[in-house]
């Protein structure tokens, strides 16, 4: 309408015959038209497309990808586990020299540099220190406060007390159940001036310490190496262990692997459920509350520095085994021929479960074992077979119990005559509780040796720290590859904050590990716990997952009725204009050439 009807001055007179093509337009009109098309395109390109882009694009927060990758590869932090061993040698002349030799021996023998023992001679106030140490042994986090100012920084892994042994004896050592003290009795024939004697003692000390911490070292080395395995540059730890690979080491590897596969994933809280499943209607009660209080609670208290535990118990009657679990009757003495007249008498023997049936022993369809807690549940089951199937035995098990990796433990308790009356006393439950305690430690991943519980719990702290560090790092790695692999998922800011918090916690944890502060507030375990929690939170962000399943085709289908009719004239006109320009340019060139 705004366009004036072209009244070309050179239009043919009405009487002349009509031409074959419309008359050429005026240059102003051509220019106006070009400007119109151009302005449309400008609006589309400058306003339309950016608007469309911004309103339909997915928000992706800028993640520190490089840093995440370096943690996932294990390049960001070389975890170190320096263990401090205090040496008390009040009676030994020239202990410094001996310590130097032992330290050398330890350093030489150590093939995994991240985990190393450091000896320190404890001076003065020894007696006082030891006594406080022993008292506070079950609460490892209190150690820092009771020790000297140096101890605030670093916790002591063990105390080696050197004392002369009885005359005529060789070197020997002794561990205590409930303290970190290692009593080492050296042979009275020890002579510090003689180098042979000194070397033999030094060697003995270093071997002893290595033996005590060997399992922990293997576990941590396994954890760190398996976490870093997919990375292109394996840390020196794995190459070190490769050098010394011999037969026994390989067996150890399999053993460690087996142990690792049992361990529950770390959680700050675990729920323990003690269940009594009886195949019949009896027994109807058990003294589980007191048994737990007396036999298990001390252990749970000792472990409270690592994880907390909530406990409940239940009795389930008429709990049948899965239909495919059928015990077999095995007579005790198959050779004995039972006389004809005694055939009716019950033959001595037992019911034995097949080993392959143990995997389906838990009848999860029928047995109510699920908890609604948000943290993992460890189940301990006392199974009481029916009278017809008593005694029921598990093959190759002296304790009649077995452990279900990452799940819990089961013990078959064959009722005695009096316990069939309907009550299971605390005395009857003691063996079960002892086994459950052992199973709990092994499910949590505590090393099976040495004897001393505080040392084992300390080991567990270090091990869990390493595990948390590697799991947080690998979560970051997964998040990294996820964001790389799926460009269409959104990354909200909450993920960015979580990743930031993970990274700072990881850095802190790494620093604390180097300092040797494992447990306690602000220690490596706590930082690692936070790192793992935040990393999981970032990875399992709900809004990220939702976007993945949004089909892109829908968007196109919705916009097509608009984009098609609008886009086609725009593109056609642009093409026409471009062709016109090209033609004109060619004509101009030809004209110029002529």
């Amino acid at each position, binding site marked *: 309408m705004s366009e004036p009807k072209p009244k070309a001055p050179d239009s043919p007179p009405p009487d002349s015959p009509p031409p074959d093509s419309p008359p050429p337009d005026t240059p102003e009109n051509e220019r106006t038209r070009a400007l119109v098309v151009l302005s449309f395109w400008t609006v589309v390109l400058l306003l339309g497309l950016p608007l469309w882009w911004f309103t339909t694009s997915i928000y992706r927060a800028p993640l520190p990808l490089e840093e995440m990758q370096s943690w996932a590869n294990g390049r960001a932090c070389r975890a170190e586990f320096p263990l401090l061993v205090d040496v008390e040698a009040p009676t030994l002349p020239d202990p410094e020299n001996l310590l130097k030799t032992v330290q050398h021996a330890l350093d030489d023998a150590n093939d995994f540099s991240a985990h190393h023992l450091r000896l320190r001679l404890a001076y003065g106030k020894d007696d006082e220190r030891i006594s406080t140490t022993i008292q506070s042994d079950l609460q490892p986090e209190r150690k820092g406060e009771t020790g000297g100012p140096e101890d605030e920084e670093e916790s002591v892994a063990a105390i080696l007390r050197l004392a002369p042994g009885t005359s005529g004896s060789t070197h020997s050592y002794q561990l205590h159940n409930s303290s970190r003290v290692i009593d080492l009795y050296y042979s009275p024939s020890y002579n510090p001036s003689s180098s042979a004697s000194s070397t033999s003692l030094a060697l003995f000390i270093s071997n002893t310490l290595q033996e005590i911490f060997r399992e922990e070292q293997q576990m941590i080395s396994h954890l760190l190496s398996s976490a870093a395995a997919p990375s292109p540059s394996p840390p020196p730890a794995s190459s070190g262990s490769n050098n010394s690979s011999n037969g026994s080491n390989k067996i150890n590897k399999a053993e460690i692997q087996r142990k690792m596969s049992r361990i529950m994933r770390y959680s700050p809280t675990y729920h323990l459920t003690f269940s009594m499943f009886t195949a019949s209607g009896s027994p109807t009660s058990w003294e589980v509350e007191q048994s737990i209080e007396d036999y298990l609670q001390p252990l749970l208290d000792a472990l409270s520095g690592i994880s907390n535990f909530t406990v409940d118990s239940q009795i389930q009657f008429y709990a049948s085994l899965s239909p495919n679990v059928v015990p077999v009757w095995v007579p005790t003495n198959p050779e004995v021929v039972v006389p004809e007249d005694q055939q009716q008498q019950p033959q001595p023997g037992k019911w034995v479960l097949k080993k392959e049936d143990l995997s389906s022993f838990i009848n999860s369809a029928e047995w109510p074992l699920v908890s609604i807690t948000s943290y993992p549940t460890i189940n301990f089951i006392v199974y009481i077979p029916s009278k017809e199937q008593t005694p029921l035995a598990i093959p190759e098990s002296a304790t009649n119990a077995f452990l279900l990796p*990452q799940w819990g433990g089961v013990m078959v308790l064959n009722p005695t005559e009096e316990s069939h009356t309907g009550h299971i006393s605390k005395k009857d439950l003691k063996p079960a509780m002892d086994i459950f305690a052992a199973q709990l430690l092994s499910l949590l991943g505590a090393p099976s040796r040495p004897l001393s519980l505080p040392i084992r719990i300390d080991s567990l702290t270090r091990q869990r720290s390493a595990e948390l560090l590697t799991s947080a790092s690998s979560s970051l790695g997964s998040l990294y590859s996820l964001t790389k692999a799926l460009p269409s998922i959104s990354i909200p800011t909450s993920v960015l904050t979580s990743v930031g918090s993970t990274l700072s916690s990881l850095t802190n944890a790494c620093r604390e590990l180097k300092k040797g502060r494992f447990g306690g507030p602000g220690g490596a375990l706590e930082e690692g716990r936070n790192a793992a929690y935040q990393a999981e939170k970032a990875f399992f962000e709900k809004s990220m997952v939702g976007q993945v399943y949004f089909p892109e085709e829908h968007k196109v289908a919705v916009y097509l*009725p608009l984009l098609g009719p609008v886009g086609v004239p725009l593109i056609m006109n642009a093409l026409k204009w471009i062709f016109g320009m090209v033609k004109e340019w060619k004509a101009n060139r030809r004209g110029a050439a002529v």
Partner: protein
Amino acid sequence: MRLLRRLIAVVLATSLISAAVGSSSSAVGSSSSSAVVDDDDHYEYDENLLLKTLPGNSVLASFRFVMNGTFNNHHSVFPRSLAQILSQSHARELHLKFSLGRWDAERWGTPIGKAGGTGVELWAWVEADDDAGADKRWTTLTNALSGLFCASLNFIDGTRTIRPVMSFQPEGHHSEREMERLHLLHGSLPREPVCTENLTPFLKLLPCKGRAGISSLLDGHKLFDAQWQSMSVVIKPVCDGDRCRLQVEQTVDMVLDVERSLQRRDSPVPKPRSIEQLNCDATKFYGVGDACFPQADLADLPWSLAEIFGRPIRGVCPLARSGSEEPAAHVCAVVPAGRPIFVSQDSYEVKRQDGTRCFVLPNGKDFDIILPLQSPPLPQDISPPPLYASRSFTGHGQERGGVQAVLRNPSPTDSVEFIYLESLPWFMKPYLHTLRTTLSPPSPLDPLRSLFYRPVLDRARGAHLEAALTLPPNSTLTLSYDFDKSVLRYTEYPPDANRGFDVAAAVITIPRTGFAIRTTSLLLSLPTPDFSMPYNVIILSSTVIALAFGSIFNLLVRRFVAADAMPRRGARLMTVRGKILAVVKRLKERGAKRKTE
């Protein structure tokens, strides 16, 4: 599945470890050996079954299981899963009801037990500091129960939750101080189809799990074939002086049609009977030949437990111990006085004062009750309920409608004071000014004593109406109000939107006696759009925009040329036309010349 993947390792627990643990524990353990008071009624479990014949060859079977537990974490007969849910959600008292079918009060009299409305009904007293906290815990509770009972309880959200003010009173014992912190929340899902998947977890909570005792009769096929059935779980603290315990009462009530059960037994596939087997009334003149006028209630049909439940009771549940004062009677039967009952051997009968015949189950042996054929049928004494209630929709069209509840007091002497509670979905918007109460026969007294009303908030909460009413003897009260129907958003419609929307049953409680009945649930039809509409809208609006754009763009960009400036399309055609026109012109001219000549 997870189980299958689990590796198995047999732990040979070393004596080393047990020694380590044992010694560390003994130091602490020796001091704390205070014995827990262990008396028997802490762990008591009671179950009983009431069988009652009803008119019209129906049998009411009412199962009741009571389990007592402690408040700590160590459970015996009390189900651990329920205890865990209670502690996680801080619920102090909980009522959960699943119901199916309708209790026919006109035929069957006073309802037995306290059944909920059709579908699922849940109410609980939750301990919390404020309303927001209570809502959060209520969500926890509904989600946990939803998982435990395989029901859609997690759909009880803010729009389906109300806080009744008058209707419900706690049944358990709560101290004054506790009551101040308790929040009562109520929600219902009238549409929930109650079925076997709800019964299975229900049975798992019982100590004998359906393997022994009366629970061995409970089978989904029979239970959900009943004319009316209701399952309920009530958890409450029960105090006896200072000593309190947590009690869970699970009940299953059902009305079985004996004729139908027997027919099912004879032929699992329902088939029409042959004419000889029909009971025809020959006295009717049209009841001859092929026509049959059915004759009902000719006889009380014979039945036994094994026939109507498909199996007998499998012995006694050894854990079932009822109160110490009398021998435990597990199965009781209420039949007309003249009707004989035969029971299995090894069980003995306990006579009650009120004529109820109770039996003690044998240990380890099957138990059955047999009632022989009784013809002519014996009269049943049916006690009328204190109130009859029915509710229906009035009006027509998809814009607005009305609700009318008819409540009848059958008693000739006593007036009834009751509370009428209605929880409406948010898309039903009642007009309170249209609320009318009409008494018939008319009476000067205003039946409406007090009224509580909380209006609708769109998509946030539903309407909550509670009215305290008085109904004079032998009269009928009609309560009615009008409402508007909302139009829902496209995504808010369920997959089968044209079926309609269920409106939860109204709850009628008589506070004086604690008696409660429910009306039936209603089916509300809302204006339902054509569900291809959004795509049509998108395509149409896109087309309009594209049209506008196209015409403007063309106007601006197209060059307009005079028609004769362009080569004529079909120029030859034009010349032919021109020639014809010229010829015609010439002929006309010639004609004109002749005229002039």
